[in-house]
């Protein structure tokens, strides 16, 4: 034991006195000699001593309050084996940078100064080679025996560093530095005092020219103005208080549903405004001659037919001519002087362009939201560390109500227990017969789910055929019969869409998935599959014009009316579902079963209902331009009804729910099957379907797309100079090679990104190994220091 310290002291000296880079062969020898020494020394005793060291390392540092890092108060040696070396070792340990990094004022300031200065210099993400240790540079100046004088010197140094920043950067830095408000104010006062003394002006990097001073003033002024504007915007946000209430009682998971609703509302308001300004308002100003408008009965709100048929709501109302055309003769025959501001307005072109523009803008907005969400919720290497994340991030500080806090604690406890049980299960896997049984149950459940989807689709198909037949018969009957026949199909479809998710929930309860996260995904999958397949069938039916409808000559108005009925029915069934599912269920639980539990708010099911409703709107925009307005009204009412029902009847879900992750999933689902499907349907209609002969803006044309071709040809004829303009639709849109090229480019970008990600994964692994090795080094050195002291004790 006494021999070893000398041996170990020799080995580091040898390597340092070399003075040149060790060759790979030497490095190998170095590592193996370290390994050998570590193995010789390490034993259970070493482990016990290390534990003791850590335990003791805690006590002296408890005497260090944050603003005075280096107040080296003396330690009282504990009972047991005591060496004077212990005190020094423990003091050293307590003052290690990794333990004091969050607390010493000078270190914090210098770290933030370096970070701000680096931010100023760089314009984009720094490459990995540039990562330097500048953040810790002034920590290296920290001496072990630092006295208060030394610490004030370090402070002064950091103050000087701060002065060299321009004022905008400085105030930004002061905002972000994690010191208390008192200290920030005193720092600010000191800095402004120092700035006013002319002596230090020469040291600071600020040029003394009035130009730069003006610039600084302008920047600061703009920044204050910008903060004030942001504050105004923040308070003007709709439903700010309501959302805060919901978040405070139920947490982020339920809040995500309402935020999703708000996003859909904004999208719809945007589409509606676009259509209003360019299509609806102008047509309303120049109404076409309508033959014998029907009397208004209240049933129109439900069926969309009757007096609504020939109104702004539907496609058939819009004219196919140029409005306000100066060359057209005036109908009254009076010689009214031509007004100076006669602007002809080509309605068909406006119609198709506005619909195209609203779809394009919605696409861009959705892609931007997905990109934004993905950036926040997906990280490189984020699949591990679930337990640690749950322990550190699970507590939602927004929740303030007593009962909700208790519920949250219970939920977290259950989730932790589930995660631990899952881990134990993974460490001892199931036996073969159990696994087989599990797989059979899964297969059976999926077969059942797919079978029900198929069954529903076939049922809808046959029912619509039956309705078609009924409609022929009811044409002679009363008005009520006619309207009743119209409403039957939407009723059945909405009924299926409301009942089947409950069935899928029961199926999931029988199935018992491994992890609760998988349960949610499976439920969403099945639900979405059902809705999208049924919608697909309906789209096919609409396009093949086997629609139960009253205005046969104008099939687009027919389809528009059908979609209107679907939207209204969907709303009614959502209300019924809220009433029965939440209100009635709570009353039953309370009165009959006398349990304190309330029904849970099923977030996934509700969000999918919203997505379904939005798909219907997007499908119907071409045929009923005012449908976004209907959707806006529907969403507004839905917000208040859902909120009231939530507050009165529900409790937050007990399953774990990662709010931002699931929000990303939902926005992706909104984009991928829902919006893209609607866009494909509308594009197909514009491209290949023959519009009706007698009504609407595209009467008599072969396809709606022909409008654009005709327009381009007209432009070419009128002005031969812009013949190149016709090149765009011909070569870019109609030619498929361009699309293939674009797809190829996108695939190449994805491939490159995947490889970059893989490289980053690898670097993270290597860095983690390096940090673990540094930890080993630390332990090794501590043991060495201890053994040297012991050796000195023995010799002394």
């Amino acid at each position: 034991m006494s021999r070893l310290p000398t041996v170990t002291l020799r080995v580091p000296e040898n390597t340092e006195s070399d003075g040149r880079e060790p060759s790979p062969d030497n490095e190998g020898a170095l590592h193996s000699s370290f390994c050998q020494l570590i193995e010789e020394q390490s034993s259970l005793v070493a482990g016990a001593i290390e534990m003791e060291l850590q335990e003791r390392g805690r006590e002296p540092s408890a005497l260090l309050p944050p603003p005075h890092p280096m107040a080296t108060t003396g330690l009282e040696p504990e009972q047991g084996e005591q060496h004077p070396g212990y005190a020094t070792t423990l003091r050293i340990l307590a003052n290690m940078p990794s333990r004091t990094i969050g607390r010493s004022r000078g270190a914090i300031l210098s770290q933030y100064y370096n970070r701000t200065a680096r931010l100023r210099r760089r314009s984009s993400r720094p490459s990995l080679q540039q990562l330097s240790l500048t953040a810790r540079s002034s920590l290296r100046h920290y001496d072990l025996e630092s006295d208060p004088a030394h610490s004030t010197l370090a402070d002064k140094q950091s103050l000087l560093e701060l002065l060299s920043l321009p004022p905008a950067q400085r105030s930004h830095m002061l905002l972000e530095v994690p010191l208390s408000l008192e200290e920030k104010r005193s720092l600010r006062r000191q800095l402004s005092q120092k700035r006013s003394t002319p002596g230090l002006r020469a040291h600071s990097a600020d040029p003394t020219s009035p130009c730069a001073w003006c610039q600084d003033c302008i920047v600061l002024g703009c920044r204050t103005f910008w903060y004030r504007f942001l504050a105004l915007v923040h308070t003007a946000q709709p439903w700010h208080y309501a959302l805060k209430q919901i978040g405070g009682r139920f947490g982020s998971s339920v809040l995500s549903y309402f935020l999703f609703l708000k996003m859909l509302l904004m999208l719809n308001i945007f589409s509606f405004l676009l259509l209003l300004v360019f299509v609806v308002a102008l047509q309303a100003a120049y109404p076409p001659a309508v033959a014998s408008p029907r009397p208004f009965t209240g049933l129109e709100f439900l069926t969309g037919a009757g007096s609504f048929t020939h109104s702004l709501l539907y496609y058939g109302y819009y004219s196919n001519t140029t409005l306000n055309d100066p060359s057209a003769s005036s109908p009254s025959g009076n010689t009214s002087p031509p007004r100076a501001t006669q602007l002809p307005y080509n309605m068909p072109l406006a119609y198709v362009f506005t619909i195209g523009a609203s779809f394009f803008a919605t696409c861009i907005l959705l892609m931007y939201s997905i990109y934004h969400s993905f950036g926040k919720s997906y990280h490189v290497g984020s699949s591990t560390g679930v337990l640690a994340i749950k322990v550190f991030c699970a507590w939602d500080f927004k929740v303030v109500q007593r009962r909700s806090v208790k519920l949250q604690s219970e939920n977290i406890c259950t989730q932790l227990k589930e995660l631990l049980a899952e881990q134990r299960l993974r460490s001892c896997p199931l036996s073969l017969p159990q696994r087989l049984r599990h797989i059979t149950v899964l297969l059976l459940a999926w077969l059942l789910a797919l079978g029900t989807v198929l069954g529903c689709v076939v049922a809808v198909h046959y029912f619509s055929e039956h309705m078609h037949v009924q409609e022929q018969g009811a044409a002679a009957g009363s008005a009520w019969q006619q309207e009743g026949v119209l409403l039957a199909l939407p009723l059945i479809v909405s009924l299926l869409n409301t009942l089947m998710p409950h069935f899928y929930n029961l199926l999931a309860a029988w199935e018992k998935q491994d992890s609760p996260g998988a349960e949610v995904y499976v439920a969403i999958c099945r639900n979405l599959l059902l809705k999208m397949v049924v919608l697909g069938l309906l789209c096919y039916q609409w396009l093949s014009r086997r629609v139960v409808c009253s205005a046969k000559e104008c099939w687009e108005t027919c389809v528009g009316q059908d979609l209107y009925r679907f939207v209204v029915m969907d709303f009614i069934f959502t209300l019924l579902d809220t009433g029965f599912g939440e209100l009635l269920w709570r009353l039953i639980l309370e009165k009959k079963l006398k349990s304190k539990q309330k029904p849970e708010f099923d977030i996934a099911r509700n969000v999918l209902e919203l997505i379904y409703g939005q798909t219907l709107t997007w499908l119907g925009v071409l045929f009923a331009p005012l449908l976004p307005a209907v959707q806006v009204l529907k969403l507004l009412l839905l917000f208040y009804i859902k909120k009231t029902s939530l507050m009165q009847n529900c409790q937050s879900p007990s399953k774990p729910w990662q709010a931002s992750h699931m929000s990303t999933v939902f926005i992706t689902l909104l984009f991928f099957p829902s919006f893209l499907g609607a866009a494909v349907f509308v594009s197909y209609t514009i491209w290949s379907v023959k519009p009706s002969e007698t009504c609407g803006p595209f009467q008599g044309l072969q396809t709606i797309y022909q409008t654009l071709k005709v327009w381009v040809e007209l432009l070419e004829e009128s002005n031969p100079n812009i013949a190149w303009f016709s090149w765009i639709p011909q070569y870019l849109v109609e030619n498929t090679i361009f699309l293939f090229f674009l797809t190829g480019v996108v695939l190449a970008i994805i491939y490159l990104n995947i490889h970059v990600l893989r490289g980053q994964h690898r670097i993270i692994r290597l860095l983690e190994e390096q940090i673990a090795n540094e930890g080993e080094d630390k332990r090794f050195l501590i043991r060495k220091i201890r053994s040297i002291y012991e050796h000195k004790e023995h010799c002394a």
Partner: protein
Amino acid sequence: MGGSSSLLPQEALGEYQELTFLNKQEILLAYKRFSELLPREQRENACSVRVPKSQILTLPELRPSPSRQANPFQHRICHVFSTSEDGDDSMSFEDFLDMLSVFSDAATSDIKSRYAFRIFDFDDDGVLDGKDLEKLVNCLTGQGEEARLSSIEMEQLIRNVLEESDIDKDGTINLSEFQHVISRSPDFVSSFKIVL
């Protein structure tokens, strides 16, 4: 609200706006709530008065309840944000603003994670070790006997957490390792929030 804005000097208001993540309305609302905690005669100079911890804990965001199921981190929050030299965890108005600023919407993830680390460090030694983690989990799961984890589960949990987050393998989690874990969770920023 108009009355309290006349009591808070304009210059101080501007300085607070610049040095915290709160906007003007939030600062004024905080001032109103803070002065309500004080007895009537001290409301004039609310800026300079310190409020004892018991009063602070009557705020609904931090309120204890008879069944002791309030925000379990209330004591730690008061302790971390208090700058009183007596160690009695009393908070001045500036400490209160500090707390609201860190817990606000606009605060950066870096600041939140630093303060979260200090709140979770129950023994104030600059690292999270096994004992800190145990106290943290007990706070999370609540005070009821049936709600706590058994000792075997607790041991397994602490072992797993340390395995996942302790990179240098010294048995404790320091600030950098904590921030590394937090950076992988996108929900942290939205759950580490208190809105008045």
